[in-house]
């Protein structure tokens, strides 16, 4: 496919394009189903059984069970869809977004109150900003060494 994907060089960022959308179709449609209170109840009662009703890959199901949003996104999930899982868990958008950085809730919240993450070093892959791959996970978890 000769279409440009100029957004491939932005660090820590997955643009939800047609390719991701195809990959994540059932994962995202599962998330949409959580907009109904009955479905949220059924999911909470037996997550695995509820997930098995959907034509998702096993890895997508594992990523949901692990509540690993970065993993979900790699598998085609989109944050606006995935947010329905967080909502079902009673999480705020800030908690969800923070969970993808490796920071604790408090660390992420403090970063935001401090003016948010700087764009410096985070514009292109290969720079040295805190969103670059070699600097993950962030926060105290990162200081404890990679795992």
């Amino acid at each position, binding site marked *: 496919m000769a279409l440009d994907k100029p957004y491939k060089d932005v660090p820590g960022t997955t643009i939800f394009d047609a390719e991701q959308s195809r990959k994540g179709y059932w994962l995202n449609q599962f998330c949409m189903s959580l907009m109904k209170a009955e479905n949220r109840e059924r999911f909470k009662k037996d997550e695995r059984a509820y997930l098995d009703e959907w034509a998702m890959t096993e890895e997508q199901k594992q990523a949901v069970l692990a509540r690993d949003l970065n993993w979900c996104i790699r598998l085609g999930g989109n944050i606006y869809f995935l947010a329905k899982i967080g909502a079902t868990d009673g999480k*705020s958008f800030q908690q969800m977004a*923070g969970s993808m950085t490796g920071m604790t809730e408090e660390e992420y919240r403090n970063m935001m109150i401090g003016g948010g993450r700087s764009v410096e070093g985070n514009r292109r892959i290969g720079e040295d900003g805190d969103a670059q791959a070699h600097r993950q996970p962030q926060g105290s978890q990162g200081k404890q060494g990679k795992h």
Partner: protein
Amino acid sequence: MARITASVYTSHVPAIGAAMDLGKTGEPYWQPLFKGYEFSKQWMKDNKPDVVFLVYNDHATAFSLDFIPTFAIGTAAEFQPADEGWGPRPVPVVKGHPELASHIAQSVIQQDFDLTIVNKMDVDHGLTVPLSLMCGQPQAWPCPVIPFAVNVVQYPVPSGQRCYNLGKAIRKAVESYDEDLNVHIWGTGGMSHQLQGPRAGLINKDFDNRFLDLLETDPEAAAAIPHIDYVREAGSEGIELVMWLIARGAMADAAGGPRPKVAHRFFHVPASNTAVGHLILENQ
């Protein structure tokens, strides 16, 4: 004849809606933000529109992956606040303006914009949070609202230039409507924010303030910003700013008229993950 007299721009963060719904607006975290909208609430009373044409994006609420319209106009008589997973917001039902909405749809399609016409759709925080910010917590919204949803979820979203040109077409459409109506057009979403991945939490005050400057005085330059610049500079969800250009293109100066008057401008960081920008422009 109907006229667009003003445009309003504001971010539409879900946490702002939650703060209002849960009575937290007085907390230190939220106080500075809501202070920035005090002027706006009074301005809405002093400049009450007959109809608001509200440009926003659906956040995987009314539209799943089964159906992704680039531009969708709501022509129904009413729209229910959506359950986005936390239960529906306790805000009034949104009354539409089917006659004006259908008129705009017809005119804009004939100006080569390939709209999708929608008669059944729940509206999410993208639409209700701006209403809450501008109108507070009334029993009913002060006027009918025409929802206009733009795809900014699945790439490619429409370009800034396309959005700006659409604004011009909407203005022509409104001005060809016979009834005397005072119409406001709102552009919502943005400013800088990223909700995903290790880069979540990105904020770029310089970009945001420059965007507000351009919106005031050089909207053509704002319209020329390519997608990749929004993603790179303002975060992956900062792309929502293209919606502001639809409202901006509907102002008189985009059709050769005088520059609008800046009635109000406000900027605050953060609301949850997001930089909040807000602007009110009045046609002279």
